[in-house]
């Protein structure tokens, strides 16, 4: 059986299932109860109690850092940091105390850090510069973190379950926007490192994650009317990255556009472009196109925000540019 549910509901189910399965799993975050409205953690406190659904003082540092400490002694924390913008206050904890900790200590005594950091990303909601960011490249740049970027409720649920079971710190990013989608009743997981071809095509490869998949699919549909056959690939996780699927596609199409809501410089597009160049240099018939935020803070006013963030139009333009090149 399939139902159509939101990403938040899908994540809520994933957390409840994993918390039932494993008593070491708990959730910690700001204002987790009493809550109003639907979120990934809504209602969990009723089933699991206040120790396993911990409403924390207002410190991202304490939330993220406590997750590290608990993980080191055998718990499996899910740290809800609300927005990626707020998590800048916890970057020492996330980058150095989580991502680098195991390696720094040589994996002492089988050290493990099974932590999931939940962060909301994305603009298009007039959130302005500090409630709209999608700093994927920030985390991908640093070693030791896995990175999940689901684009659908199905993937959000399946990837979150995988994240909770992973013995390493996982950054789990969900976008503020996104439609409900089909999710099976039966349990399932989505493995890390397996891209999905959202739309097969022969002319250009588009790589996109999260809400950018939605925009890219629309752009691809529009271009199909003009006879341009776009293949849209959603890697679902950036780390590990299913570069093989991307490279195979580029070998076929000869052209690549990476669509990313984050700022462009040293971004996801630069990295995927570099990896593709390294592996399929001769296949590339045009420079890798990058559709991204042109290195600006996200402005508040809707017309300005539209000008800065990727749009269906800007994706179409970039795709067409790789064809004329």
């Amino acid at each position, binding site marked *: 059986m399939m139902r159509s549910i939101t990403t938040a509901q899908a994540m809520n189910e994933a957390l409840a299932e994993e918390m039932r399965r494993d008593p070491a799993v708990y959730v910690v975050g700001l204002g987790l109860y009493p809550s109003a409205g639907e979120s990934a953690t809504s209602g969990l406190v009723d089933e699991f109690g206040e120790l396993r659904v911990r409403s924390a*003082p207002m*410190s991202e540092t304490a939330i993220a850092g406590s997750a590290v400490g608990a993980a080191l002694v055998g718990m499996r924390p899910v740290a809800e940091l609300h927005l990626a913008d707020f998590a800048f206050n916890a970057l020492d904890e996330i980058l150095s105390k989580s991502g680098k900790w195991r390696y720094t200590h040589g994996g002492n005594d089988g050290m493990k850090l099974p932590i999931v950091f939940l962060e909301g990303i994305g603009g298009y909601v007039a959130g302005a510069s500090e409630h709209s960011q999608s700093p994927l490249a920030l985390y991908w740049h640093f070693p030791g973190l896995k990175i999940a970027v689901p684009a659908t409720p199905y993937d959000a649920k399946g990837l979150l379950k995988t994240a909770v079971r992973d013995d390493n710190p996982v950054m789990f990013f969900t976008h503020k926007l996104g439609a409900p989608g089909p999710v099976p009743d039966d349990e399932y997981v989505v493995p890390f490192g397996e891209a999905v071809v959202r739309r097969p095509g022969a002319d250009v490869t588009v790589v996109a994650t999260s809400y950018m998949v939605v925009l890219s699919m629309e752009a691809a549909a529009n271009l199909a009317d003009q006879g341009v056959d776009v293949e849209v690939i959603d890697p679902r996780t950036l780390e590990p990255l299913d570069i093989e699927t991307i490279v195979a596609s580029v070998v076929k199409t000869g052209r690549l556009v990476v669509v990313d809501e984050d700022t462009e410089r040293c971004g996801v597009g630069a990295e995927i472009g570099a990896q593709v160049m390294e592996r399929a240099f001769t296949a590339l018939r045009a420079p890798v196109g990058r559709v991204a935020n042109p290195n600006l803070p996200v402005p508040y006013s809707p017309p300005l925000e539209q000008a800065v963030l990727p749009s269906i139009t800007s994706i179409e333009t970039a795709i067409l540019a790789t064809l004329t090149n």
Partner: protein
Amino acid sequence: MTLTAVEKQALYIAMVRSRAFEEAAGALAASGDIPASWLSGIGQEGTLGAIVQLRADDYLTITHRGAYGFIGRGSDPRRLLAELLGKKAGYCKGKGGRHIADLEHGILGKSGTVGGHAPLAIGVGTAIQNWGGDQVVLSLFGEGTSNRGTTHASMNTAAVWQLPVVWVCENNGYVGNVPASVYTATPDIADMAASYGMPGEVVDGNDALAVHDAARRAIVRARSGSGPSLLELKTYRIRPFAESATDVRDPAEAVAWRDRDPVAGLRDRLLESGELTLADAEAVTAAAREEMAAAAAYARESPFPDPAAAFEDLYA
């Protein structure tokens, strides 16, 4: 030092204008004219007791909540509302939304992370001290925000450097729908002052005159070079966390606090003492409502920025 009738009236007018602004902003949020949400400060206008006594050359760091900081400092409501509507005429040309700066009135901008202002406040204090000036910086924060490391590090630094900062914690008892007992271990945030060897005082935040009095002492102290202080204003947020949010707090609480409305409270006292007539009070309210209605109309009619403006203003 007691306030003159004129000073009290000025304070009252600021509170009424602030309330009227909040109501206008709330209406614009409800009508969808504000593309994001609005975090109402209704019920917390007692803080104006501190703000109105700042000098023109003093500084203020605000929070995410309410507009009394701007109104109390003399910012233009039209440009404030234009900003909230994302219009070109706004204080930040529509780029900031709730993140408003008004440098002319000593308000340096709004941080998207709560607690982001405290380190800025000590920087302003540094500047004042280096210039040898006698300005002060008044720095507001919520009791939830007291949890953050920035609050601690900044208060400590202000105390070590003896900076002219007046820390004002507006304790409205909640972070969103979560009561303070879930995130602070002691009932009084003012207790933090002991860690820094500075005065800490709990004040009835809904009594604007009491706030004025306590703030006066702290401002005098800061201005004279004797260093920072911490005031904790006990108050209550009447509206939900944000206009877009659902309130699951016990409604009886709001009812009880409404009886202690800081605006009505000051009005009643001034009426009683004869420092305000009923006619004056009504005129003040009417004028404020009219002003804010005009500001709302201005903001609504004002044009959006040109999309090309998105590519300006990154660097000076």
